[in-house]
């Protein structure tokens, strides 16, 4: 924390607090996030019994924010994991094998990057159909190139190091080289890359839900809550502004944490 400074540190703490609360939400004395109460609709924040007010169906906004946070974080985390898995595999193979394999794999990755990534994600959603799981797949796929290219860059260097050569001379198989020698050395790179993309993924999945292509009712993540609130923004701005604020705090917390993590794991690449 000392590295971050109090201002940045407090953002990370705030995001961590939100994430923690969202995980504990079922245990907290909160209203049911899906309980509709039409006589209590659109209460302003600080109303009795509803700390952050209620939405257009009279549902408690605080409870919904926490359940939405949990869903958004889960989707973003899953997308980051899927993307990291495939991207790391492709990048490590390309970097280790080199030559023709490297060329084929990386040209394939280049093609994934030929489209602006959000447009490509939309094309994937068009094929798969709207829905949160499909949004997750789309966001994962469009972020694979980032991992593949980052990991390949490091793997190329590692594959030429003496300990790998020595391992090969001693009769170690390619698989053994990849898993025992390359992968452990790639972990810092992948961790930093995953933290960085986690923040984007959060913004992107929330964005797809905002467009109505991600979470479908009754399922609600932060993006779809923002979209719901947008219709009444002029009269009840808090319904739309609060989910957006939560997305911002979470993304900022994750990004600041990622920056600090990178500085800590790789002091040469400070910026």
């Amino acid at each position, binding site marked *: 924390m000392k590295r971050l400074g109090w201002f940045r540190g407090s953002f990370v703490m705030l995001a961590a607090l939100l994430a923690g609360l969202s995980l504990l939400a079922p245990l907290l004395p909160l209203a049911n996030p899906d309980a509709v109460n039409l006589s209590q609709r659109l209460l302003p924040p600080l109303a009795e019994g509803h700390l952050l007010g209620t939405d257009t169906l009279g549902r408690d906004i605080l409870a919904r924010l926490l359940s939405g946070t949990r869903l958004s974080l889960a989707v973003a985390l899953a997308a980051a994991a899927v993307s990291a898995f495939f991207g790391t595999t492709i990048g490590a193979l390309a970097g280790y094998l080199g030559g023709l394999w490297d060329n084929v794999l990386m040209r394939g990755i280049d093609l994934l990057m030929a489209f*602006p990534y*959000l447009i490509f994600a939309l094309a994937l959603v068009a094929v798969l159909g709207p829905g949160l799981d499909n949004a997750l797949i789309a966001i994962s796929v469009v972020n694979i190139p980032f991992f593949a290219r980052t990991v390949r860059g490091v793997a190329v260097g590692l594959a030429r190091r003496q300990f790998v050569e020595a391992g090969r001379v001693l009769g170690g198989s390619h698989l053994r080289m990849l898993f025992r020698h390359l992968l452990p050395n790639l972990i810092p790179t992948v961790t930093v890359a995953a933290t960085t993309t986690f923040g984007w993924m959060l913004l992107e999945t929330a964005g797809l839900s905002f467009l109505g292509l991600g979470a479908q009712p009754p399922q609600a993540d932060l993006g779809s809550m923002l979209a719901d609130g947008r219709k009444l923004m002029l009269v009840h701005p808090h319904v739309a502004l609060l989910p957006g604020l939560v997305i911002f705090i979470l*993304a900022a917390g994750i990004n600041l944490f990622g920056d600090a993590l990178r500085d800590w794991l790789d002091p040469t690449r400070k910026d």
Partner: protein
Amino acid sequence: MTAYIFKRLLYMVPVLLAVTFILFVLMKLVPGDAAEAMLGPYATPENVERLREDMQLDQPFFVQYFGWLGDIVRGDLGTAYSLDRPVRDEVLERFGATLVLAGGAFLVCCLLGLGAGFFLAAREHGTGAKVVTLMTLAGISLPSFWLGLLFILLFAVELHWLPAGGMYSLFGGETLGDLLRHLVLPSLALGLVAAAVTARLMRTQMLEVLSQGYIRTARAKGLREAKVLGKHAFINGFIAVIPVLGLQAGYVLGGAVYIETIFQWPGIGRMLVQAIQARDLLLVQGGVLLVGVSYLFINLLADVLQHALDPRLKQ
């Protein structure tokens, strides 16, 4: 230089082929086929079969692909069934609107991003730099769709400075001034995030240049600091950032989807979202194709520009 451009243009041919192929394969992955998707769940098998023949879906895969490719070259992208209009006309019209918005946002990205990056590198340890650094950090974490809503609430609803949406006023519009007034808020909302990313990179690149030996030489021979920063550090930093500006153009084209939805901008992003909801796959295909191809050419332009400005790349 001409040889380089020619080589790059030649290299575009296989890339374009591959990109169209990916898009074609992607659309083939739709459950059922385009004919079923178009006619919906209540269509009779006879009607589906007739449409399938009409769309040549009964032909072998590669015959279909090259047939489609030939159609594209002839400028025929099919008919958007949800609009009952040629895809080409709709897509080109919408893309024009997107280019206006993306152009405005890209201008914001370049002016603010490069400016802020320059400031951060020049005043590396000042209080101002700390504030700007925090702003760029906030910028990369801001959901642009939320920022757009904040702008509408503040500048349109509360202050009545600028219109809340649309491209032209309903009455007496269609003038350049009217367009520019409508353009300010969406292009700011879209451009600020890209500007934050650009600023961070510009700062890093400029500091990299400033740590070089020739900068020390320039300072030692008594060159004014303004010239050191402006002539040496800025220009060389800028050249290194050009490819990233190409990527930002892609971000701006993609992010336009959100901003167009919020500001009711009649661009291609909003069209894509509507087309997905209407399951109008030909329209999606045409839109993605046009944006993708333009993006390829933007990046080509960025590479050529960098090549022209950086003598080291000439070898």
